[in-house]
């Protein structure tokens, strides 16, 4: 069995550390190595933390300070040339996938994104990933090396002891002209709710007729000490609520004790966001709404009549 050399990199410092711990937990062989990359924009002390997480080597890239993924990919590609990893690990974030794509096109890599776990046994690399809009888990066998696996944030990363000795290196990035220039960067509005941490969530869907009627949902949420969630149409399309309320495949994934879906039809992209809820209650006037097949308790009826009654009954 050949030894694995794993190169871990992410624009998110926390994910980079978790990737190192994940790599350390894999059977890499006697001469196997875990390498970590520190890219431009990493917080101070990032190299020390990656070493502490269990990396055998930490390479700090100087230069490549650019919002153009092509420039970052060129820098990573030059590190790949010198370290010749068998496996690259990154985070399946938006920037992570964008960089993964650029690198893959440049180096002709096998790529798996949205990965939830990795198995390495006798040179056989198998990855579990979300597929079919997050509604199914695929087990995929990687048949080409080097491969790049992008892990969905939240993956298991067991703690590991630091390596006995850690190699530190500086790697000057090749000078490449940026093809894309970042002209402006603005934070998204919102940030007042964290539905991913909420114990109870009242989610509203397209059953709501007018933005002003949100007060009904907010009152129910207050009575339940719950956060307000919403489906894609209400956030991305109508803009009635900010993106931090949005639950679903491209929104937030939540795991509350109680999930109350009001006027939510149950599109597959939404269901994946709420799958981890403990108890699901659905209110919908259409008895055939797909949401009911994913619910513990179904209430068939007009939300405009049921919600005020629930607010009264469930409050205090």
């Amino acid at each position, binding site marked *: 069995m050949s030894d694995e050399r794993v190169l871990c990199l992410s624009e998110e410092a926390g994910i980079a550390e978790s990737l190192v711990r994940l790599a350390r937990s894999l059977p890499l062989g006697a001469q196997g190595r875990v390498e970590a990359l520190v890219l431009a924009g990493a917080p101070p002390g990032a190299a020390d933390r990656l070493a502490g997480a269990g990396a055998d080597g930490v390479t700090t890239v100087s230069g490549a300070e650019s919002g153009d993924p092509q420039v970052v990919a060129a820098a990573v590609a030059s590190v790949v040339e010198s370290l010749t990893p068998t496996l690259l690990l990154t985070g399946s974030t938006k920037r992570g996938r964008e960089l993964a794509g650029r690198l893959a096109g440049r180096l002709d890599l096998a790529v798996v994104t949205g990965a939830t776990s990795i198995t390495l046994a006798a040179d056989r690399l198998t990855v579990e990933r979300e597929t079919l809009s997050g509604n199914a888990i695929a087990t995929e066998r990687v048949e080409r090396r080097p491969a790049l696996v992008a892990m969905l944030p939240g993956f298991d990363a067991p703690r590991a002891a630091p390596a006995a000795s850690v190699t530190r290196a500086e790697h000057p990035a090749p000078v490449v002209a940026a093809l894309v220039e970042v002209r402006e960067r*603005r934070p998204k509005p919102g940030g007042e709710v964290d539905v991913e941490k909420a114990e109870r969530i009242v989610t509203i869907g397209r059953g709501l007729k007018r933005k002003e009627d949100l007060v009904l949902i907010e009152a129910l949420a207050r009575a339940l000490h719950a956060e307000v969630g919403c489906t894609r149409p209400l956030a991305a399309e109508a803009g009635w609520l900010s993106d931090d309320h949005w639950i679903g495949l491209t929104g937030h994934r939540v795991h509350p004790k109680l999930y109350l879906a009001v006027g939510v039809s149950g599109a597959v992209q939404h269901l994946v966001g709420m799958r981890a809820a403990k108890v699901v209650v659905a209110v919908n006037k259409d008895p055939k709404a797909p949401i009911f097949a994913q619910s513990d308790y179904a209430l068939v009826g007009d939300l405009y009549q049921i919600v005020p009654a629930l607010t009264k009954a469930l409050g205090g």
Partner: protein
Amino acid sequence: MAGKLRIGVAVKHGVDVVLTRADKATGLIALAGAPRKTSDFDKNAVEEAVRLRDKHGGVVTAISVGGPNAKEALREAVAIGADEAVLVTHDGWADWDTRAVGRLLAAASRTLGGFDLLVLGEGSTDHFSGILGPRVAGELGVASVAYARKITLENDLLLVEKDLEREVEVVAAHLPAVVSVGQEINTPRLPTFLQNLKASKKEVRVLAPEALGVDAATLRPSVVAERVRVPEVPRKLTTLTGATPEELAQRLREALASEGVLP
């Protein structure tokens, strides 16, 4: 940019996530032979390509890499407004992986004379690797912008609002470029009956990998799906009833109290 604007748009005829059912006993899904449809984000890509052409002139070529049935996705693209349709396929086609599709799209882009702008969906509804746009651009060595929620073109300068998790970037790039779009960018039009009828008669140009200078033998999958299963989430599926909304609410209160999930 010399002459008229050449826009390529990639469309996937992917597995229909809504119609696909798992085997009740095993929880496994068979992807071979599963019902297929045009991938959701790709309709946004076609719509955006068509709008850009309507504003700036030029030609929109829809390209699909896949099986013979992918012609359906191409005809849908034509119904939305694409001018030309190209299918890259070969005899005995079995699902190509992202690497193969990326290589074929890049090869198609070169062989068809080069696009000023190649538009893709951010990811496919079924597989959602979410890397194809940057992958093709990486192979072609041209600019790429992912997660576009607004595209503006000023001569050969492309301005894109890029939608990231916690921020929005406004980025600029000169053509040629590859842009992948999110669903926020537009609402794809629903073609009329006549547009669909006309599109159904549109000739689709069919090209084999070899015609694009790619040896099909080198497209062997780099990643193989061994199995696809639906995670089992047991739900109680209890319908509560009550003569009045108040009574119904009371039933729910009792149920949730016994679950221990009330504050």
